[in-house]
């Protein structure tokens, strides 16, 4: 973007989001009306608001459309293998606890192939922030069914319609031990920004699900219009129920969406538990592990 001379009395403000992006790589690869870019705005603003030392923030993603987020963030960023962002992030965090580790990936990546790692990191309460963009589909590979695809929706590998029960992600995260669980949509930009900031500043396994349109595949195959139509749907069919029992917030095909902050509790993180345990066992012989 070039700056021209102006004859007004206001100085040109910058879009602070660009401070967090590798602008030399723009434009990004996401489709018109895709919600991922919207969530990146929320992430950038949340990082800004969190006042974290950006040198210590590391973003880890997997494979898929959302997985490409890591490549666009101007931070230490790692675009790892499909489903394995979380164990890589675990390694980063445990090797250097000073790092603030954020996993930013999609529903298929994190809960299908990555499901095992998701539940164990939550169980261990490894201190990391997991931002899961849920577009109910495998976008990058052409629109296959995902563990979040609602019953009745069509995907390229369920061309006659999906009959598998999808995950209720907040319920899954809570049941595995996540200390912070929230769901918003890419329409709820201010709520999502606040949730990401809270999750970033929260100790432990913090999980934020953000629903986003996939106009090219999920919406088109299911005749749901384009990205804007999906965003309007989120606006008109979401109900905010902070503190709701996560058992009660499953999603159905074009059904009611429950959003909000569902879980926010405190538990020792993996490293806190480890240090406390070994301190008790070994006394002075043990130096608390700091990396």
């Amino acid at each position, binding site marked *: 973007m070039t700056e021209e001379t102006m004859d007004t009395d206001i100085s040109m403000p910058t879009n602070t989001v660009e401070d967090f992006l590798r602008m030399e790589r723009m434009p990004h690869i996401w489709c018109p009306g895709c919600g991922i870019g919207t969530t990146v705005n929320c992430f950038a603003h949340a990082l800004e608001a969190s006042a974290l030392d950006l040198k210590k923030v590391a973003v880890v993603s997997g494979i898929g459309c959302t997985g490409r987020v890591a490549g666009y963030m101007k931070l230490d960023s790692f675009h790892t293998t499909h489903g394995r962002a979380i164990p890589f992030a675990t*390694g980063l965090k*445990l*090797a250097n606890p000073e790092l603030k580790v954020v996993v930013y990936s999609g529903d298929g990546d994190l809960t299908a192939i990555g499901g095992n790692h998701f539940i164990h990191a939550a169980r261990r309460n490894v201190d990391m922030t997991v931002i899961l963009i849920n577009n109910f589909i495998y976008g990058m590979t052409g629109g296959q069914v995902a563990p979040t695809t609602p019953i009745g929706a069509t995907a390229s590998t369920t061309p006659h319609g999906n009959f598998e029960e999808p995950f209720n992600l907040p319920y899954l995260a809570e049941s595995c031990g996540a200390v912070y669980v929230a769901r918003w949509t890419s329409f709820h930009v201010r709520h999502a920004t606040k949730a990401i900031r809270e999750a970033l500043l929260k100790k432990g396994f913090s999980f934020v699900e953000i629903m986003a349109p996939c106009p090219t595949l999920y919406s088109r195959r299911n005749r749901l219009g384009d990205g804007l139509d999906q965003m309007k749907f989120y606006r008109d069919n979401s109900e905010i129920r902070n503190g709701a029992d996560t058992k009660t917030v499953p999603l159905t095909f074009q059904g009611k969406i429950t959003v909000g902050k569902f879980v926010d509790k405190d538990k020792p993180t993996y490293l806190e538990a480890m240090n406390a345990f070994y301190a008790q066992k070994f006394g002075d012989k*043990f130096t608390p*592990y700091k990396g």
Partner: protein
Amino acid sequence: MKADPKGVMTGAYFIDGDHACAEGAIAAGCRFVAGYPITPSTEVVERIAERFPLIGGMFIQMEDEIASSIAIQGGVWAGKKAMTVTSGPGFSLMMEHLGLAAMTETPCVFVDVQRAGPSTGLPTLPAQGDMMQARWGSHGDYAIIALCPNSPQESFDLTIKAFNLAEQYRVPVLLMLDECVGHMTERVVIPPADQIEITPRRYWEGSKEDFLLFKADADLVPPIVKAGDGFNIHVTGLTHDERGYPVMTPAAQEKLVRRLVDKIRKNADAIVEYREDQVDGAEIVVVSYGITSRVAIPAIEQARKEGMKVGHLRLITAWPFPTKRIRELSTKVRGFVVPEINYGQMVREVERCVAGRARVQLVPHGGGSVHNPKDIYAAIAGVGKG
């Protein structure tokens, strides 16, 4: 630089190969291990789990080998020397991440204590059936280094070497034990820390502005940095340019992947290592590695007693393979004998290098036990008779 004395268990011990490997890792400065139990490798991580808490190391038993093999890479990028340990079935699971480490040039160590395969096979019994997998197991073109200890002492020594080579060449290095070497108990001498040479990580020392994470030095190896130091690195398994940014073109592929392969191929002279015994002037050369190299000794001695001129070439690096030396020998000897506990893996490398100039006799052996030296002797005698 010298090893950090904290953690080096200087002294003479009666321990097995798995335990010696753990001590070698600790002596080399490894302070991050992620692993998963699998016979006959589990003792390595069990010892690490025992030792790490009091020397500031981080060990975590991950939920599977796939998680372990990438958690160590997170550990490396956060600044630690890292290792994972497994056997055949786990080794297969780790292949994707071995490729990731090669592609992203992440220095780390993968230990495979080989057991009989394929599949679940014979979990508690030895084999050497993963040797080709070590070289070619992940998809695509890349190169790695693989070392073969034949004793607990060598398990200690070569683990240190593995870490040093990983840092020198910014590459994953494999340590190919077998169940025999892993579970045999022998004397292992651990020297004082100031007698142990450690290769430090090749960190970039210039300015942030000039740094390119995948721009190689003259030896084809790029300097590295770690997360948290403000370099805003990007590391991806996609084909990438010197900045680390994905570039989806054949030109980028050629530039990057050719260098990954050449990084080891062109430095092979410095990396390749083997031990020779009476190879100069020999008519028959036994090429062996791992436990089989010890089983071959009585066979070789018997043949020598009968007047045969038998040399013994023992691989320390299985990969890169000592191509030059075998090629050179192939013009001078009558033949090679290659005993291995598989149905023919490293023999193919010998055949490749020999290119028909001499006889190559494989002595195969099914997984589950070591050779009877008589079989190796019979092969030597057979080659001797021509």
